[in-house]
């Protein structure tokens, strides 16, 4: 049996060998993933364990790397939009927006106001869907099988709503440079209006079944404490940094679109642990619903795509731009530089999950395996986004 690090001479690939070099005697090197129930896809974490305790952990990425940034070099700006839906299947519209917004910023395109509202509504709905997906999957990580079904029941309603304007259910490519592809139909707006009270009525059940449950509380309270300084050093954003008491939300910090006109709270938690992140996400669901309600009230009539929106032969104006939006997992940033050609010279995608995951190695040190899984889940990872 090649269980122990000191006898482990040959077995293992590049990463394991790189990892095992400094391993101490008698510890157990364990590969969590790339196929493992708690890694949500193809994340792989190499851990060195002493019994149930984790001495050291190192995530290994790249199993889902698709080199989106290269694809951006060979496609025109408009052609790259479908890629953005595939970066993060959880909050695809956030990525849509980040890229489209960056190009609009660089080219100085003004988006019609109705389109801005449509963008806010759809991407906030998408955020709720993403949080619900996280909630269900996280509870699955913690060993509760039923919540994910309830969460999917509600998420399904959002997917149905978003299917009306976008036509897809997961990997949306709905935003266009200068607006959105289609207006929200009357039916769609009506079902959004119906959805919000329904979702509100469901939240107490979530609380009863899960949030207040003593087993869950004991599982997530006090584990994975992330200090604000760590958030800064690792660039952690979104619910991860808000769960550590930093009230940073791109929608508030550097407002874009119609967010300055909307009234919503940025929830924070001073607990700094997995519980803090859990609470923040649960409150964010409510806040997103508030935002949607206001948008439905305020939304003006008008076009949803700017006149003279880019044609296939459109040349991207010279310049550079960095545009960040608040995704479900944190700050989604897209940096574009154009030399004036059809294709963008360099596109950089800043994935929030990537930065959040880089915290994991430090946070998981010294925890027990079950906690490591709970911490990993509390970071809300979507692997395609991290690997890009």
């Amino acid at each position, binding site marked *: *049996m090649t269980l122990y690090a000191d006898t482990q001479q040959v077995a293992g690939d590049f990463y394991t060998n790189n990892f095992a070099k400094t391993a101490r005697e008698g510890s157990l090197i*364990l590969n969590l993933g790339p196929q493992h129930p708690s890694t949500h896809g193809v994340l792989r974490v190499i851990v060195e364990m002493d019994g*149930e305790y984790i001495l050291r952990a190192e995530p290994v990425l790249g199993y889902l790397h698709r080199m989106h940034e290269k694809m951006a070099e060979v496609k025109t700006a408009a052609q790259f939009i479908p890629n953005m839906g595939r970066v993060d299947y959880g909050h695809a519209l956030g990525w849509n927006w980040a890229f489209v917004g960056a190009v609009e910023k660089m080219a100085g395109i003004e988006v019609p106001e109705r389109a801005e509202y449509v963008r806010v509504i759809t991407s906030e709905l998408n955020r709720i869907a993403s949080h619900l997906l996280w909630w269900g999957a996280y509870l699955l*990580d*913690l*060993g509760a099988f039923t919540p994910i*079904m309830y969460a999917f029941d509600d998420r399904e309603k959002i997917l149905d709503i978003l299917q009306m304007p976008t036509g897809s259910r997961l990997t949306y490519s709905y935003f266009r440079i200068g607006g959105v592809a289609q207006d929200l139909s009357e039916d769609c707006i009506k079902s959004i209006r119906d959805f919000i009270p329904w979702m509100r009525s469901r939240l107490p059940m979530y609380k009863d079944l899960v949030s207040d449950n003593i*087993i869950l509380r004991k599982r997530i309270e006090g584990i994975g404490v992330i200090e604000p300084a760590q958030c800064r050093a690792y660039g952690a954003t979104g619910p991860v940094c808000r769960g550590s008491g930093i009230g940073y939300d791109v929608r508030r910090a550097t407002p874009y679109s119609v967010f300055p006109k909307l009234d919503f709270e940025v929830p924070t938690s001073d607990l700094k642990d997995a519980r803090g992140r859990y609470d923040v996400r649960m409150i964010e669901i409510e806040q997103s619903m508030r935002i949607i309600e206001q948008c439905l009230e305020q939304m003006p009539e008008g076009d949803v795509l700017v006149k003279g929106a880019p044609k296939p032969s459109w040349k991207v104006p010279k310049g550079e731009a960095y545009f960040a939006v608040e995704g479900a997992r944190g700050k989604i940033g897209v940096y574009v530089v154009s030399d004036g050609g059809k294709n963008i010279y360099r596109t950089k995608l800043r994935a929030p999950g990537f930065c959040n995951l880089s915290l994991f190695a430090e946070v998981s040190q010294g925890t*027990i395996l079950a906690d490591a899984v709970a911490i990993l889940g509390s970071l809300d990872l979507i692997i395609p986004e991290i690997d890009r």
Partner: protein
Amino acid sequence: MPAELIRILIGLVAVALSVGLIGLVMVWVERKVAGHVQRRPGPYEVGPYGLLQPLADALKLVGKQLFMPDNADPILFWLAPVLSFLPVLLLFLPLPLGDELFALDINLGLLLILAFSGLAVLSLLLGGWASNNKYGLLGAARAVAQSVAYEIPLLLSVLAVCFVAGSLNLATVVKEQGTWPWNWNIMTQPLAFLIYIVSALGETNRAPFDLPEAESELTAGFHTEYSGMGFGLFFLAEYANMVVVCSVATVLFLGGWHGPVLPGPVWFVLKVSLLMLLLVFFRWTYPRVRFDQLLNINWKWLMPLAVANLMLTAFFVKLAQYTVVK
């Protein structure tokens, strides 16, 4: 003597058959309940209400290739699932289903059950160890620590009932209780019942205490490398163990076959089923506890409570004796 032997043999055959049947039915119940809790139908294609689904699954498992990983210990690897299943058969023998319906009338019935159920952990250890898998090893280590720990409060809570009944013979314990719920031991020993149920969850590795096979941490724990009938036997043993645990709870706390109107065995099966349903509901409601918490619950709560309960019971039993004598 031969009559006794024949009785045991018939009992064994009946048990072997019924354990298989119970396993299949329980799989169906578990999946159906899980389905309805999660607001989906559960199995419904194979047979009426999907009743034949477990049978189809079992056939599939039987038909699968017996696969063993490289470098696994072949003898121990295959011994483990068999070892997990066989003792379960014995556990059913001393259980009294009705007034006269039992395979083995033995003074030490309870002791027999407790002793053989202790064997189950050995099979988990062997399975986890022999499969040459790190997850399996961790799962096996967890299984041992958990079983050893939870056996103690289980024993202590059971012992309290035996003090009251003054016998380890399960039939006697049942006879001590009456027809109506207020005549059952659960009324005199509610704490012992609670402790018993919680420890039983720990003993049978049921959620929320299913740490040896916690899939989000250890993929499948001790049975990670098992497929086909190797896995099937572990699976069957788990459900059979559940039945035993619930039956013992029925016998000790819920008045066994006692009950108004209906015949004894019906009441017995009804009570066992209700308890099983409760365990199934636990599984589909709660998150899994963490390993250190699991042991904390045991050593910090269940153990002291069980000991205190036992002392109190002993005290009252003695007191009752004195008062009766005088």
